[in-house]
């Protein structure tokens, strides 16, 4: 196998979206993919992340445009809701497809 062929074989792995590939962010995206929207507390409880950790990952996902953060009022109290953007939805599905392809190729 030539070097270029090897590079071609490894390309799908090196091209994985690193924003999605991080386990905590992948968990957040998977959770937000299956619900319409959720608040900080729900995501924190379901992913098992700490407050600071979740906050930092959400900032990265928001920077990448994968999630949208909406401030709203529930019973006159300010409330922060999170939901996946169209870009985030596409990125999550593309990542899922890439991983299925990579793992499918790796398995005998």
């Amino acid at each position, binding site marked *: 196998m030539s070097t270029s062929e090897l590079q071609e074989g490894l390309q799908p792995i090196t091209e994985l979206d690193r924003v999605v590939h991080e386990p905590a962010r992948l968990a957040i995206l998977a959770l937000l993919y299956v619900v319409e929207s959720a608040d900080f507390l729900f995501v924190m409880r379901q992913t098992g992340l700490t407050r600071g950790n979740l906050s930092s990952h959400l900032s990265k996902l928001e920077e990448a445009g994968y999630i949208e953060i909406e401030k709203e009022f529930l019973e006159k109290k300010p409330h*922060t809701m999170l939901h996946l953007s169209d870009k985030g939805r596409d990125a999550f599905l593309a990542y899922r497809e890439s991983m299925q392809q990579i793992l499918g190729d790796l398995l005998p």
Partner: protein
Amino acid sequence: MDLERLERRARQVVESDGLVRLLAGIWLVAHGLFNYDHRHVWAPILAIQVLLWSTESIRQRFTYPRIGYVRFRPSKTWIRVTAALVLIGAYAFAGVLDYSRFDWFAPAYLGVFLAIVVGIWAYRSGSWIDFVFAGLCLVSGLVGLRYTAQGADDGYVTAVQFWALGTLPIAVGLGQLLIFLRRYPEPTEGAANVNI
């Protein structure tokens, strides 16, 4: 990654408050009142109105502040339309059955219908309690059939059936609600509103 299972688990988290079971049980008991005496037609209608209105407001007060707020995508339109048509059809058939010479078959019809509805719910929730409840609905149909076959009034038998079946989800739902409230104490003010 099984996304369908992930969504089911997310729903289970919200439903662990036991409210759906508790309120379904209350509705069954109210419906029993109508079967016992058709003049109480207001009971199931009022119960369904109150329950539909109260589920979300009770959740806003007790459930979401504890586990966090979550919204699920509404069911697909065709599913809701089919469910409504099935329900209307089921009531229409029950009405016809009530005035026919096969009215003695009503308990079995009720048992099978409830078993199918609860069975679908059990498949969706994945909870063994709901599967047991679906089985009990079937059993209640057979037991009721035995009484109507002996000449007992079908309205009275189905009323008892509704009341007996209503007590189980009420008990389970109440138990679940108490466990839920203990497991998830109300967090401090603003916990759900962290600045990101």
